[in-house]
């Protein structure tokens, strides 16, 4: 065994362990300190919370804000909006819960120093769209991180969390987490009464459009490593909507988001011939999805679908007609800040390709799929709802607790509650944080015990890639090809190709089917077996190895859910060629999966979608 794995272990005991210091995790840390003044609250993060997670760049808008103080919107309206966007399938209780709290989060952000833009006429926040407000958000993450740092008992940066630990006697109860320090390799064992997973969503599960060096240029961050799903599902927690991967219309190559351009600046999206194609395709869309085509605004997936049909028909490139709207210096500033605040790469595309958005339109593309719970899709863990308004079967204890005792989640981790975005993720973290405090208080003298046998086994498993490399590397002279191990990147490229070609990625125009999925599952199963043979040449690559593990497990869930749902619910996100239409009679339901840790089997089921709002 590698020397590194025999080093002293560091044990950290906590009342509440928060995994991931992004938006959900910072919210959870803040709120659990508010309610649990005397508790030991530990935040563990694989990077540095100052700039970790999806918001490391910054953001230019807060996409979930009601404005109840000005009577702009009510939570129930927001539920209708999110439900419509997701073609009917959302956890209305969870969404309502976020919507009713999110304004207090945003007001706090402003108090902390986040510059929120104001409408000079009304003095209210400047609206990007009905639900979004504009910010000067370059320092969004450092501001939020400051609040979290001041709330946590301890923050452990640069610890890659690899596994959750389970209670010795009660197999459905969480007991902590395992990880290693990516600088010195020290194994960290966190023992905690409650664990809140807020480890974000997933890029690089599907093959990205960019290649070679450019592979890092995904829309969601390359470090969004699917850990939330990879950690949680392996405990046996129930997952939902994992097939509901997101594809986004984005500025080509730079991946600049379109929201501010469409909603605030009101730039047109057209085909190569300057035509607004969306309306022209409405009848065809209706034939696929029926009444859902009449939703306003047109659901995100259907906007994608219209674009894809144009591209397939050879009417591309699709363009954002930026030059039609940048008629004042102020608007030019808004347009540029939108990207300089959150995807600088788009500015680099403009500069390198001599595109001045004041003069020329910019190409759009549909992105590779991502797995997320916080944007316009809602993959993630099945969670207990708010005590006051969740339907009975959505409620089994503590708000935002998964089906595993003591295991909570927030942000991308939690399924069913789309359109949280940054503010909603932080808010959900707050909800989970308060809830975890309550759980810990009520747990009282019955703390979980880490299973020593599990710990010893996992310790070996975690460092195995270093050992694989040390041994296997001796067989060959030099270079990157060896018979007995593959690098994390090689494994990742295999994963991405499988998901791309069989599970509805870009190379099939998001098409899949039962035969494709079954073939994909065969190949994915072999890849899973090969995970035992990943070779890591250093601790950085050991981090990549475990990110790969989390992505592969997540991919399997995505594949199995996609196979289970025999309809095309969200054309524009993916298509089942064998079931090309939306089918409300059979599929107005959540798909759920549960991995059985003992047998290694997955159980698929349907869960009801309750509409608690007209």
């Amino acid at each position, binding site marked *: 065994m590698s020397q590194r794995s025999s080093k002293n272990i560091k044990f950290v005991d906590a009342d509440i362990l928060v995994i991931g210091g992004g938006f959900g995790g910072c919210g959870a840390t803040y709120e659990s300190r508010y309610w649990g003044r005397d508790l030991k609250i530990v935040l563990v993060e694989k990077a540095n919370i*100052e700039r970790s997670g999806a918001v490391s760049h910054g953001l230019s808008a807060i996409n979930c804000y009601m404005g109840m103080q000005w009577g702009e919107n009510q939570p129930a309206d927001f539920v209708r909006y999110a439900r419509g966007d997701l073609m009917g399938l959302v956890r209305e209780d969870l969404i309502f819960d976020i919507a009713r709290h999110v304004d207090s989060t945003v007001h706090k952000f402003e108090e902390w120093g986040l510059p929120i833009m104001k409408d000079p006429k009304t003095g209210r926040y400047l609206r990007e769209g009905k639900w979004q407000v504009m910010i000067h958000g370059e320092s969004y993450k450092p501001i939020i991180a400051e609040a979290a740092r001041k709330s946590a008992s301890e923050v452990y940066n640069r610890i890659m969390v690899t596994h959750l630990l389970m209670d010795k006697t009660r197999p459905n109860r969480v007991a902590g987490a395992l990880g290693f320090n990516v600088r010195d390799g020290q194994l960290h064992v966190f023992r905690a009464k409650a664990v809140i997973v807020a480890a974000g969503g997933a890029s690089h599960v599907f093959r990205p459009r*960019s290649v070679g060096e450019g592979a890092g*240029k995904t829309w969601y*961050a390359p470090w969004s490593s699917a850990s939330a799903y990879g950690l949680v599902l392996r405990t046996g927690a129930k997952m939902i909507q994992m097939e509901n991967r997101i594809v986004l219309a984005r500025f080509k190559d730079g991946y600049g988001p379109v929201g501010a351009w469409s909603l605030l600046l009101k730039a047109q999206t057209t085909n190569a011939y300057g035509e607004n194609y969306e309306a022209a395709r409405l009848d065809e869309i209706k034939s696929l999805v029926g009444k859902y085509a009449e939703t306003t605004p047109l659901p995100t997936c259907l906007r994608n679908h219209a674009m894809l049909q144009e591209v397939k028909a050879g009417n591309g490139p699709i363009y954002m007609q930026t030059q039609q709207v940048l008629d004042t210096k102020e608007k030019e500033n808004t347009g540029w800040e939108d990207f300089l605040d959150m995807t600088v790469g788009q500015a680099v595309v403009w500069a390198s390709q*001599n595109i001045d958005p004041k003069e020329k339109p910019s190409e759009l593309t549909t992105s590779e799929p991502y797995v997320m719970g916080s944007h316009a899709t809602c993959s993630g863990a099945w969670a207990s709802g708010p005590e006051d308004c969740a339907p*009975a079967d959505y409620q089994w204890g503590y708000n935002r607790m998964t089906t595993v005792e003591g295991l909570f989640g927030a942000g991308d981790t939690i399924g069913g509650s789309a359109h949280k975005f940054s503010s909603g993720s932080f808010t959900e973290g707050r909800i989970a944080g308060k809830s975890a405090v*309550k759980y810990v208080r009520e747990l009282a003298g019955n703390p979980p015990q880490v299973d020593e046998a599990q710990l010893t086994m996992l310790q070996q498993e975690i460092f195995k890639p270093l050992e694989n490399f040390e041994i296997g590397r001796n067989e060959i002279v030099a270079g990157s090809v060896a018979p007995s191990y593959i690098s994390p990147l090689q494994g990742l490229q295999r994963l991405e190709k499988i998901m791309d070609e069989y599970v509805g990625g870009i190379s099939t125009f998001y098409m899949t089917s039962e035969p494709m999925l079954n073939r994909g599952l065969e190949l994915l199963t072999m890849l899973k077996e090969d995970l035992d043979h990943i070779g890591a040449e250093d601790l950085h690559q050991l981090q990549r190895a475990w990110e790969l593990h989390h992505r592969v497990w997540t991919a399997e869930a995505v594949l199995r859910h996609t196979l289970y749902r025999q309809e095309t619910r969200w054309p524009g996100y993916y298509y089942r060629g064998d079931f090309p239409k939306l089918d409300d009679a059979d599929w107005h339901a959540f798909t759920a999966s549960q991995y059985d840790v003992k047998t290694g089997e997955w159980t698929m089921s349907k869960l009801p979608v309750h509409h608690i709002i007209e």
Partner: protein
Amino acid sequence: MPTFTYMTRCDGCGECVDICPSDIMHIDPVYRRSYNVEPNFCWECYSCVKACPQHAIDVRGFADFAPLGHSVRVLREEKMGTISWKIRYRDGRVKEFTFPIRTTPWGSIKPPSDYAAPDANALGSQMLAHEPTALGVEMLPTLPVLDKKEV
């Protein structure tokens, strides 16, 4: 535009190593200066660029789609609460922008434990910290619990 480090500017302080969310800014063992070990995992997030005291890090657009000859430089001034950008086009055009980043002093956030401790009963309510005040409305909205309803 993955990052690169100018040899003559870097002093090996490690700030970039400390901040990079992708853990890809490493110190070269020979030169004791930083470099990007995995450009294909760089998100061009500029966290390291903004953090470098020597302004030693720059980016050039990802080779698979960005022609050469451009630059996007940044100066983030925490105390002034601003960030300034200078964008140089391949064809020589230049654009400059400055935006605010924060309205309060760094470090000024009031920790949750500095607020009055909440009432013990409140733990069982649906209210979060600072609510309902911070909501800007009088009451936290709620809904009747329904069992199942078609929409």
